[in-house]
């Protein structure tokens, strides 16, 4: 049992303790959840040392048998990419907990218990190296989020929660079918073992098999990302979820999809990836522009941020399918950035909601007068989100665009319009909310940041700057891990590479136009 197992087990232990704690005292429950999740974060930081030293390989590996027939293993490990995603999860959980102190008044115990269970599932998804285990964690994440939306959400919460559950379920059952099919062929669920078998030629897939398996996996991931046109659950889920739920959903859960593509789809199905990259990138580009345009006309702040997520995640998918190091690095960086800046945006919108009890932009205006600090912080976050240099998103978007240019310059051109549009919708919202006349109700209700709110947002602001200025902390390890994935993609598909590169690129460009 190593540190990674402990990091994984802790949230589950916390969840179980929460269940048996007495219901009565809300403050004990809150403080316990907060304290516990801070400890989890502290412990998880200990993972960084070893993982950063050898980011290209898996560190902190545990590989033991769980079930004998069929052979299911508890196989977990961490590389340079999953390290950051695990840290993102453990980092945002305490913040989400702290953030809910005043917002959640009913069924306090269950709320924090579900947040800890969610953390358990998320960490599990990012470290699983056995397909079966991965699937288990993938589904485990579903249940707490379903309850978080359904119990503590807004008016249409039930519709949103059920839609969220069913959408994800449809995708994941097909993934399960694909996992079972792979098991049928290879006799193992172990991911590294499968990869080795594929490389050594022990396991070969026919063209049709590879395409169908790729599509089954990809569909599950694409729903989660969400990729246009599978995104319709996202605005509903976000708008209806309580603030902490939105933060966790946007910041970490969406990354399950992109992580799945990066970790599993790209290395396992290189040929299918190459062949299908064209239409996938087309969809990603549509998502970038469409998400931005829809965000532009949203009267509801949360919905606006939700559609902006569709647009941002389009960048990530674009980067993933560019097929070069720039694109992959940018995609992963953008996954983290989106977690930080969109998480912060949802949090700030939540702060406004707690004051004014409305998410409609028209109910605000001139917030800067009664709450100057809140508007400053909001502005910094807005700028980060639209890709202002020296803040985090700039780096990721730049890398993705660089990668796209290398692959096909038109992709970059179209994607770049998304960056411009993001400035339009974010700044326009900012202007309507924070500047102008201050209505009576706003002046009356909206006060400036409280100490607790500062405590929530400051770490995120610090990270926006850090990730925008000193990328050296993050990029080398991400790059090293991505290189392994990229090499595999290219070596395994060597015979096809001679003919392949031009065709899909040209096709995609036509689609894109």
């Amino acid at each position: 049992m190593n540190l990674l197992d402990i990091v994984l087990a802790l949230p589950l232990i916390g969840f179980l303790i929460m269940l048996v704690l007495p219901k009565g005292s809300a403050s004990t429950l809150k403080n316990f959840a907060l304290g516990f999740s801070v400890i989890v974060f502290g412990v998880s930081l200990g993972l960084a040392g070893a993982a950063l030293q050898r980011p290209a390989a898996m560190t902190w590996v545990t590989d033991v048998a769980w079930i004998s027939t069929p052979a299911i293993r508890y196989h977990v490990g961490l590389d340079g990419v999953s390290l950051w995603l695990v840290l993102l999860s453990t980092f945002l959980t305490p913040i989400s907990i702290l953030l809910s102190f005043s917002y959640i008044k009913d069924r306090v115990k269950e709320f924090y218990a579900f947040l800890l269970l969610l953390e358990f599932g998320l960490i599990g998804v990012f470290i699983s190296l056995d397909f079966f285990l991965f699937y288990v964690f993938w589904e485990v994440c579903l249940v707490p989020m379903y309850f978080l939306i359904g119990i503590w959400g807004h008016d249409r919460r039930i519709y949103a929660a059920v839609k969220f559950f069913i959408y994800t379920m449809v995708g994941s059952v097909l993934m399960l079918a694909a996992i079972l099919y792979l098991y049928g062929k290879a006799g193992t669920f172990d991911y590294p073992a499968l990869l080795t078998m594929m490389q050594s030629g022990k396991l070969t897939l026919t063209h049709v098999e590879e395409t169908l398996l790729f599509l089954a996996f990809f569909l599950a991931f694409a729903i989660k990302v969400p990729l246009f046109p599978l995104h319709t659950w996202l605005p509903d889920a976000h708008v209806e979820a309580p603030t902490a739920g939105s933060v966790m959903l946007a910041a970490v859960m969406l990354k399950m999809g992109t992580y799945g593509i990066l970790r599993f789809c790209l290395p396992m199905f290189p040929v299918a990836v190459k062949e299908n990259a064209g239409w996938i990138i087309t969809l990603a580009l549509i998502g970038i522009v469409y998400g931005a345009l829809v965000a532009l006309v949203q009267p509801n702040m949360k919905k606006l941020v939700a559609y902006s997520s569709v647009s941002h995640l389009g960048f990530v998918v674009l980067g993933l399918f560019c097929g070069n190091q720039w694109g992959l690095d940018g995609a992963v960086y953008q996954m983290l950035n989106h977690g930080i800046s969109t998480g912060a945006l949802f949090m700030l919108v939540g702060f406004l909601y707690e004051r004014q009890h409305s998410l409609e932009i028209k109910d605000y205006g001139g917030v800067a007068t009664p709450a100057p600090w809140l508007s400053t912080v909001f502005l910094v976050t807005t700028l980060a989100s639209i890709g202002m240099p020296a803040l985090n998103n700039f780096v990721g978007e730049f890398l993705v665009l660089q990668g796209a240019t290398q692959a096909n310059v038109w992709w970059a051109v179209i994607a770049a319009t998304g960056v411009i549009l993001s400035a339009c919708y974010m700044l326009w919202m900012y202007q309507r909310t924070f500047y102008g006349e201050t209505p009576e109700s706003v002046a009356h209700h909206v006060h400036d940041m409280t100490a607790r709110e500062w405590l929530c947002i400051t770490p995120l602001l610090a990270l926006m700057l850090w990730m925008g200025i000193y990328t050296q902390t993050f990029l080398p390890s991400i790059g090293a891990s991505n290189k392994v994935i990229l090499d595999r993609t290219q070596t395994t598909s060597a015979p096809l590479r001679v003919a392949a590169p031009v065709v899909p690129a040209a096709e995609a460009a036509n689609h894109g136009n």
Partner: protein
Amino acid sequence: MATNFFPSSADMLKFLPETVLTLAGTLLLLVEGFKKERDSRTGVAVFTLLAIVAAMGASVVAYQNPGLAFSKMVISDGFAAFFRVVAYVVGIFTVLCSMNYLEREKAHTGEFYILLLFSLAGQGIMASANELMMVFIGLEVSSIASYILAGYLRDDKRSNESSLKYFLLGSFATAFLLYGVAWIYGMTGSTNLGEIRTALSSGAPSSIMVPAAAALILVGFAFKISAAPFQAWAPDVYQGAPAPVAGFLSAGPKAAAFAIFLRVFLTAFDPLAAKFAPVLWMMALATMIVGNFAALWQNNIKRMLGYSSIAHAGYVLVAVTTHSTMGTAAAMFYLAAYALMNYGAFAIVTHVAGDGEKHVTVDDLKGLSQRQPAVAALLTIFMLSLIGVPLTAGFFGKFYIFKAAIEGKFVWLTALGLLNSAVAAYYYLRVLVVMYMHEPETTEHPEEIPGGVKLTMWVTAAATLVLGMFPGIVLDLANQFALLGK
């Protein structure tokens, strides 16, 4: 033919569980004659429990004496023992949940337990039959007792309707079965499963009548397992039957019917496997679709669970379709898991329904999480397990079935079946929605949960979770016992 008509004592051991149950039932029948209507039946219930536990022990004894008995009419093997134990466990839950229930519904008489014992004996015969006549006898013993159990609340219109429908349609189906048996006998000259197989595989009677006869028998089984298009009785019967009985019917007799279905089609009709694969394929798919889609519109929770049990029969049929040892093991695991989770759900329905089963709509569960958090939490476990969420028994059940299907190259059936389980999520989630996301409508103080129901729901929930984490406990047995006709 056996030269000695009188069975040897070794034969008796192989038939011990049924003997125990029948004797216990008969004894109770005598005792019941001397009881007054107002007398307490607690003693009877406890005796019934002991008898079932003894029968479980007897199943182990029978398992340790493997082989054929009574002129090859009965077979004692691991497969039989497995299904006997599943049925008996369900029987124990039924007794535990019924004691208080019958008291509450003012129908607490000893016959209930006697019928239950006979029904279990019938299921034991089904699990261990090696002969088509024994199949018929087992089915009838089990079914006739079940018909009466379904209508046990004789002053209740719903219960009467349930019983009558079950009886009429059930008899009709058994007639099909019997007709099929007669044809098979006519063509192969035997009703013994092994001999039929030998006759069929030697290819002697090659006429179209053989598959036709097998199809008649299939119709009989399909009715008992509520497979489409013979599923129409299930929702009506489950809705009208007393809740503990509905749970019993959905788990015990169904498992036994699958047992005999598997045994007959994997041994006697093994040579016809290729002919039946497409039929079973269609039947599995249709059953899943009919069950799941009809369940979407149900408001009565018992009726919903009735449709859900059709859908689950469809999943098990996927395993049957594979016609493989692995599929058989998967079906065995699934039926055991299903018995646990579904009985757990019915135990909770028994409690929540209240006096006269007034509160049986989904809306009656509104705000249950606030009124009775533990009950709501347990029902959540059962619902998640029925959906097939990981870390519950239901997940591994589906997992093994679809794994077997994939390995048997039934890729499309797998994909469609799994999509079906996503559809099913919707109606199970509705239960969670009303329990957790609606405010309670009544301010009535919840009734005390009777001990038997409480025990049942905690035990089934714990078992559902344990099997969800360590499925090997049951699966290893299933794998070991699934070698039918090999």
